[in-house]
C-alpha cells in the first residue's frame, strides 16, 4: 500500500480523488483541507508521497511543502503538485521546487492512481 497525503481545499475534488485512488486498492489515503491541517496530520501519518494542491487559502502548496521539508521524515518524500495553472512556466517553477510530477486540473480520475504510481517508480 502506498501511503498518500492529499492536501486540497475543495471538498468535491477531495471526494473525487478519494474515489479515484480507491479504485485500484493500492493507496492508503489521508486527506487534509489545508496546509495547516496537513502539518497536524503528518504527526501521526508519514506518507510515501505528497499530493499537494497549489492554490489554497491560508498556506499555499508551496508553503506547505517548505514547512514539511523541515521535518526529517518528510525531507525526501516525493511531492506531486496539482494545479489549475499548468502552463509551461508554472510547471517549470514547480519542477524547480523539486516536484516529482505536476498534474493539471481537471485531472482524469480514471488514470490518477496509475499516473502517481508511474511517477513514484521513476522517482525511486
Amino acid at each position, binding site marked *: 500500500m502506498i501511503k498518500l497525503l492529499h492536501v486540497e481545499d*475543495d471538498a468535491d475534488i477531495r471526494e473525487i*480523488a478519494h474515489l*479515484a485512488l480507491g479504485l485500484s486498492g493500492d493507496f492508503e489515503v489521508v486527506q487534509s483541507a489545508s496546509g495547516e491541517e496537513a502539518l497536524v496530520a503528518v504527526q501521526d501519518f508519514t506518507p510515501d508521497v505528497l499530493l499537494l494542491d497549489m492554490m489554497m487559502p491560508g498556506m499555499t502548496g508551496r508553503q506547505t511543502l517548505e514547512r514539511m521539508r523541515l521535518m526529517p521524515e518528510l525531507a525526501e518524500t516525493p511531492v506531486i503538485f496539482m494545479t489549475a495553472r499548468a502552463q509551461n512556466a508554472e510547471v517549470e517553477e514547480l519542477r524547480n521546487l523539486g516536484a516529482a510530477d505536476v498534474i493539471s486540473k481537471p485531472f482524469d480520475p480514471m488514470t490518477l492512481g496509475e499516473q502517481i504510481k508511474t511517477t513514484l517508480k521513476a522517482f525511486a
Partner: protein
Amino acid sequence: MSGLFIQGLTDNTGTGFAIGTALASTWFLLSPSILSGAAANVLPALGAIAIAGLAPVLLTKYHIRQTTSGRALSMAQRLSALDRHAMVNIVNDKHQLTEVNDLLLEMTGYSRRDLIGEQVLKLYDTPNRALALQIRSSLQRGEMWQGETPLRRKDGTMIYTHSTILPLFDSKGNWTGSISVRTDITQTRQLLADRDVSESLHELRDDIWIVRAESEKFTYVNAAARRRLGWQETGIGAHSLGDLAHQPGGKAIRAACRRMVEREETSTQFEETLFDLPFHISIKFLRDEQDDARFLIVLNDISDRVEQERRQSEFISTVSHELRSPLTSIKGSMGLMLSNATGDLPEKAVGLLEIAHRNADRLVLILNDILDLEKISAGKLEFTLDDVDMCELVREATEANLSLSERFGITLDIDCVDEAAIAVTTDPNRLMQVMNNLVSNACKFSKPGDTVTIRIRDEGDNVRVSVRDQGQGIPVPDQHKIFQKFADLANSARSTKGGTGLGLSICKAIVQSLGGTIGFTSREGNGTTFYFVLPKGHIKKEETSSEPPLRVAS
C-alpha cells in the same frame, strides 16, 4: 508709379469723407480685440497709419487745390509712404477694379492689365467669395468694413491681408464704389501659428525631444521632458543621447536613430522602458532646407495602458483558472460514473452522461485556448525549441487523432514521399497543437467514409505540411475570416463536433511565431486543404528585423 496712384485718387474725388482720423483711432482701439499676439501690437498701429494717411486723399481734390505747395509735398510724401506700405485698390459701382497700386501687383503677382476692369472677386478664391459678397453688402449700406481677407495670388497661392475698406459716395450721396487698404499679415499669421505650435509642444503631456542627427546633442526638450530629465532650461545642448544610454529605453532610442540614418528611414516607433516607466516612443527623422538633420522624438507614457492590460490579462488568467476547480469536480464525477465506479447505470443515463462529459471536455479546451490567446496577445506565448523529425511528429499527431477519426468514420492517410527524416528545429509541443487542430478539424468537417490526407514535403530550406479533407469546402464569403477568433460562430457544427472557434487563430499565431506561414485552399463541395510552411532552421521573429520589439495589439 505712385504718381499714377495719386492721379487715380484725384479722379475719384467728390467723396465726402472727413472721417479718416476718426477711423484711424477707431481701428487702433478696436483692432487689438480682433487680433492676438504680436499682431495685436503691430497691426493696429500700421492700420491706423494707413487710414490716417488715406483720409486726406479722400478729402477730395478741392482740399488739395487749397493746399500750399509745401503742404502738397508733405501729402505726396505721406501718400508715397502709404503706397509703399499697404496694398490699395479702388473698385467702381460695378465692382470692377479701377485702380491698383504697385505693391498690390507685386504681392499678388498680377499685372495691372490683368486686373483693371476685372471684377474684384478675381482677387478672392472660390471659398472666400462669400466673404467678398458680405463685404460688398456692408459697403453698399455705407458701412466701413474691416477684417481679414485672404486673397488669391495669380499663381494660386494665398496671401492673408488685414483690410480696411471704405465705401465711396459722390456729392449727391450715390454709392460709387470703394477703396481698400490692405496689409500683408501672412507672415504674422505664420509666426502666430508657429508660436502656437511651439507653445503647444512645450505644454504637451508627452515628452518631446529634438536631437541633432550628427552630434546626437539635444537642441530642445519640452517642459514635460525637462522635468523628467531634471535638466536646467539653459544648457540642454550639453546633453546627448549617450547620456541616457545606460537605460534600456535610452539605448534603444539611440540605436533606432542610428539605424534610421543608416537606412534612410523617416520614422519608427516602438515601446521601451525609460526612467522605469513604459513608453511608446515615436521618432521622426527630419531634414530642413539647409540639410540640417534632426530627430523629433515623442515619448508617450503608457503606464496606464500597460497596467490596464496587465489587469485584464490577470483577470482572464484568474477566471480561466478559477473555472478549472468546478470543472475538475464535474468532469471527475462524470468520469467516475461512466467508468462504473459507482455501479451500472441505465443506458439512457450513460448517453446523457457522455454528452455532459464531452461538453465538459470542450469547456476545458476553450479555457486552454483562451489562455493561449491571452498569452499570444500579451506576446508571452512560450516556445521551447528542439530538433525534431517532421515525419515522426506528423505520425504522432495522426496517432493522437485516431480515436477521433474513428468516431467520425474517417481514414487518416499519411503521404510522406521520402521516408527519410526531415529535420526541423522547432517547438514540437506547439507544432503538435497545430497538427492536432488541423487534423481534428479535417475529421470534423468530413463525411463518414472520407479520407483525410496528411502530406509532408521537403522544400529545401522549408518543410510544407498539408492536411486535406474531402468535405464541403469553405464557402467563399467565409474564407476571408477563417483565421479570426470564433470565425465559425454561425456554424452549428462547432457545438456538435466539439470545436472551440479559437483553434485556427491560435494555429496562425504559433506558425507565424515559429517563422512560418499558414494558409488554405478550398473549393465548395470539393474539400479543403490547410497547409503550413516552416523554415527548417527556426528563425525567431525578432531576428528577421532589428526593429525594437513592438507590442502586437490583439
